[in-house]
């Protein structure tokens, strides 16, 4: 791949082909956003629509989140995490495999706007990108940053940058693999006294507005009625009470255990920039350790909490 323009061209061509071949009635991808650091999910139904597709480092959602119960055949222009989430939707019977066509794209990772803003304090009026850098422009100045230095937290430990094994068709070159999350920080935290752990996790969510953008952006949160919206009984108060907020994040993480593909949509959607994935990572580590399960890696392997082995270990049970 020589340039971003080529990649965009390839994406548009692949999308048109998917529509023309009848493999899809609609193609999910992204188009350019209207403001710095934004991109808009784009649903193309005609060849003309396909002309707006671009590759972006500013995708804040996971396109697989639009799949559950979506009527008709869909082609998904998918990053690795999106492909994995789409697999999850299929495994969990939220979307039929035969209606899904995955156009995989090798991904160098998404850019974290907060990371950019931390390095560039001048007001940024325009952001453009090419394959490996992002270019910033302000009042009378320009600057470039390598994407690799301002990646989103989840993208730094991505285990599926090139979704070759999941995609029906691949575009772009392979993105060099990265070392997986070693959970070193969580292991260090685990050795601390309970009060410190509690202070850390409560501190993470102290700014939470309970807007539930994380839930809405999450490809796993497709329940028709979320437990926080249940009214009889109403499990959670609706105020900004710290324990209610904490409970929401704990239970949401639990519901995502063994299913989360670390796509980071929750953190990217969070307007308060809360490190929501810390809760998910807690369980991700445990799921890998106990059941050697990697979510979204196989079209037919069941998520660990929907199955069991008679010899599962649990020595803490008396």
């Amino acid at each position, binding site marked *: 791949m020589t340039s971003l323009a080529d990649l965009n061209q390839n994406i548009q061509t692949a999308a048109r082909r998917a529509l023309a071949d009848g493999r899809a009635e609609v193609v999910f991808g992204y188009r350019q956003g209207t*403001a710095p650091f934004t991109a*808009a999910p784009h649903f193309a139904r005609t060849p003309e629509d396909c002309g707006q597709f671009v590759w972006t480092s500013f995708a804040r959602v996971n396109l697989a989140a*639009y799949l559950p119960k979506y009527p008709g055949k869909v082609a998904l222009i998918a990053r690795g995490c999106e492909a994995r989430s789409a697999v999850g939707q299929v495994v969990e019977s939220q979307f039929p495999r035969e209606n899904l066509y995955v156009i995989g794209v090798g991904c160098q990772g998404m850019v974290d706007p907060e990371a950019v803003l931390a390095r560039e304090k001048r*007001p940024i009026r325009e952001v453009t990108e090419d394959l490996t850098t992002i270019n910033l422009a302000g009042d009378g100045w320009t600057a470039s940053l390598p994407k690799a230095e301002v990646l989103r937290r989840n993208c730094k430990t991505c285990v599926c940058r090139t979704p070759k094994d999941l995609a029906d068709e691949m575009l772009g070159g392979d993105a060099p693999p990265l070392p997986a999350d070693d959970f070193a920080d969580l292991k260090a935290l685990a050795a601390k006294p309970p009060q410190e752990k509690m202070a850390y996790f409560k501190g993470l969510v102290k700014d939470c507005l309970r807007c539930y*953008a994380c839930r809405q*952006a999450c490809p796993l949160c497709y329940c028709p009625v979320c437990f926080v919206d249940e009214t009889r009984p109403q499990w959670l108060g609706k105020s900004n009470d710290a324990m209610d907020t904490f409970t929401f994040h704990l239970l949401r993480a639990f519901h995502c255990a063994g299913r989360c593909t670390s796509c980071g949509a929750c953190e990217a959607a969070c*307007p308060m920039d809360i490190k929501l994935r810390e809760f998910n990572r807690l369980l991700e580590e445990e799921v890998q350790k106990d059941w050697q399960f990697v979510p979204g890696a196989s079209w037919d392997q069941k998520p660990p909490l929907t199955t069991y082995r008679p010899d599962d270990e649990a020595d803490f049970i008396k």
Partner: protein
Amino acid sequence: MAEYTVKDKLSFLKAAAGSGRRLLAPSSKDGRVRLAEVTPDRVAFDYLNTHLSPKDAFFPQTEKMLAFHKDAAKPGAFVYQPLGLDKIQPTVVFGLRPCDARGLAVCDRVFQNDRFTDPYWKTKYEGAVKIGLACQAPGPNCFCTAVGGSPFGEDGLDVLAFTKGEGLGLKTLTPAGDEFLKGLSGLESGGAAGEMDGLKKAAESRLPGPLDLAKAQAAPVMEIYNQPHWKETADRCLNCGTCTFFCPTCHCFDIQDEENERGGVRMRNWDTCMSWLYTIHGSGHNPRPTKTERVRQRFMHKLKYIPLKQGGACGCVGCGRCVQHCPVNIDIRAVAVDMSK
């Protein structure tokens, strides 16, 4: 009204803080600027705008309104009593951006409508002297000028200030503003208005021109309501409600009771029209069953219903927060263009 200058921002803020009013001003915490009670030396000046809109100073995310006790031995068991109203202190709010001040004025016309007055809002809002800080370097997502505002806008403010070297230029806009500045020491009379005009023009020239909302606002409600573009916009909407939580004019709330064995509290919490729960009837019927209706409601409310009910005042003040934070880039400017087609 009067105009003043001060040579030194800090001494002005110290005088304001010493006026007997609580000083609320933008300050930085955990890398984010927010409106909070601060000491004068901690007030931030180098911010585009506060991260959250300033509405929470007058309409907090959670506000206890009433309480009751269950002790039958004491008078008034199971009878709700008002809470908090007597504890509201007069404040001076420094550093409101003109867009946000205008947003608060939109909220004010809802909280004090043609039939009812919300005492919790009124006490706080009218008890505050609101000093705006003009935007001399508007941000990349700002578009106040597109919806009838200005970086030097005066709506909803008692005093408009602008940075003048190390000091401030100040212009009073209401008797309350006049009264407040008169009582402060260290102010020099005059020397602000002339300079202000030039700065205003310079700042406005860096912002987009007006959106053409005339057609959408003149058309009958149902004509705009039935436009075909709503579904397309809603398709990518996640109904996350971030826009509503950050919007300076979104004022919807939910009322909830919480109780224990001793008594209970009635409180209100910010709510969002993006949630299906917001409108669902007890019977299970939902007047806005899908995200298309909910997305349409939000934009119709901002760009059509509020202007209808508030004599043309736009419900969007162009602060740009929703544009910045929307995870799927639903841009209210683009919606406004669609509505006017």
